[in-house]
């Protein structure tokens, strides 16, 4: 990767790391008090309270991974930290999406959900990891660039 790409990566993942850290801290505090829902952001743990504090720990780790990767970002071991943090977001957000898919198929009174009920299952609010998911995908560009360098 060139110097411009490295500089952008450093700033971008520092900001993403700080946001992940803030979300993680909020979820940790929320898990002690039963969670919260703020607009389209859901940290209520309504689906499964056991998972709230677990998610919070993962998000905090994601934040630390991103932040610690910023220095000398182009070096492969540093980049790996950002890749790992993104994979951790994909796991948690992927499971949040899977949870919605699993809940949207069976109906309340009928075997299968109605189309309205199905679509309503995907409406907000969303957990913090789902907000971080699209932003974490930027790492794909850096993985691609690193792959080119390795070749």
């Amino acid at each position, binding site marked *: 990767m060139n110097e411009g790409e490295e500089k952008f990566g450093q700033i971008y993942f520092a900001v993403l790391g700080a946001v992940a850290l803030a979300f993680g801290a909020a979820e940790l505090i929320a898990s002690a008090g039963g969670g919260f829902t703020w607009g389209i952001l859901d940290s209520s743990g309504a689906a*499964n*309270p*056991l*998972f709230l504090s*677990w*998610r919070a*720990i*993962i998000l905090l*780790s994601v934040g*630390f*991974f991103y932040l610690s990767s910023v220095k000398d970002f182009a070096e*492969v*071991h540093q*980049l*790996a*930290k950002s*890749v*790992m943090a993104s*994979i*951790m977001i994909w*796991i*948690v957000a*992927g*499971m949040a999406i*899977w*949870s919605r898919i*699993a*809940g949207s*198929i*069976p109906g309340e009174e009928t*075997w299968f959900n109605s189309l309205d009920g199905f679509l309503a299952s995907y409406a907000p609010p969303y957990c913090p990891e789902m907000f971080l998911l699209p932003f974490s995908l930027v790492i794909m560009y850096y*993985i691609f660039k*690193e*792959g080119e360098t*390795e070749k």
Partner: protein
Amino acid sequence: MPLSVDERWDLIDKISKQTVTFGAYKHTLKDAIAELTVKPLTGIPVAIAVIYGFWSFFCDFAGTLFTDGFMVRLFDEHWLPWLQSVFPGGLGNPLYALMVDAGHIENGVLVASDTCFESFGVLTSGLFVPFGVVLWAVVAFYLMFAILEDVGYLPRLAVLVDTVLHKIGLHGYAIVPTFLSLGCNVPGVTAVRPLETRKQRFLMITLLAVFIPCGAQIGIMQDLVPELMGWIFLTLAIGYLGFGFILNKIVPGKSPEIIMDVPPYQMPMWRNIASKLWIRTSRFLLVAVPFVLLGCLIVGLMYLTGAMDWLAAVFGPLLMGWFGVPEETVAPLIAGFLRKDLAVGMIGGLMEQGIMTTFQVFTSVVLLCIYFPCLATFVMMLKEENWKEFLGSIASLVAMVFVYGGLIHLVGIMLGVA
């Protein structure tokens, strides 16, 4: 003519000079990620995320989608009422009680069951437990397990937990039989063979048989008491490490290092995963279904002949006094000899009848996990251990159940919940 040692080394040098290329190796991104997953500081958070994904998928696939989404409706709203209406005899008839619904007493009147957890017939609970709940839990578990195996994460997890497991006389590889036992204890017990010494194998088998609940049992627990799962697993993990530490001090023998191959990360091969999933799930069903049906039949017969009431009267004081659970728990404990999942399902029935407090449900479920391995695991233990070791395992097991079960009751009393 045989070569001397020096000549052999010379030959090795010559061959390696001709075949090995020496030079500086530049780490790739894959290597760097592989390193991150085995270093404790970074590897532990990654393991926490991986286990979160594993558990989350398990709950939503088995619980939300299949069991709660379709199977509960199929069995409770269609299968049970249909059998109740067409099976000859009706409530109170012995054959009907054995095969369909034993019913339960409400205000002095025998009433029909509303759910397959309560009914306890061979054709109702006997089919609902393996096909309505357990099958989906096992599929979810083995699917995720096969993916982690194929990707190459499991050996890294073994490296990561090596230090902790050495404290209890085991090697990091012990995480593989432990993980495998979370699906079914039978292959878990078989998987202890690569452990080096008899001491390590004895420790591993004993800890697996006592503290590791199988996928079937976890599936039923998740369905019945999802809010208690964290506490149940924490209690079992403390027992696993605590008693492992004690056994390591008491049992004579060595716990040497073993060398394990850690393959590079790779994309999972879906053909591989599908065949592993099929083999493991079908084997599991072949073992589980006959035992569940037999368990329903035996427990039903014991109720009908009054043997269960007699056992409840005999063991009631011990259960109440030492473990703090009601005498009705004796029935699930007996069923647990055959299948633990069936036994937890019976506790679900008692819960729905309002016989137990939340703490008693928690204690009963933990007791069911630790009090004895199911019959299939028991047979496997006999096969893998000699008589001396087997008796040692049983003696350790009895001691652990009484000490740990009593401790849990004591903690409950101190917290004012027992």
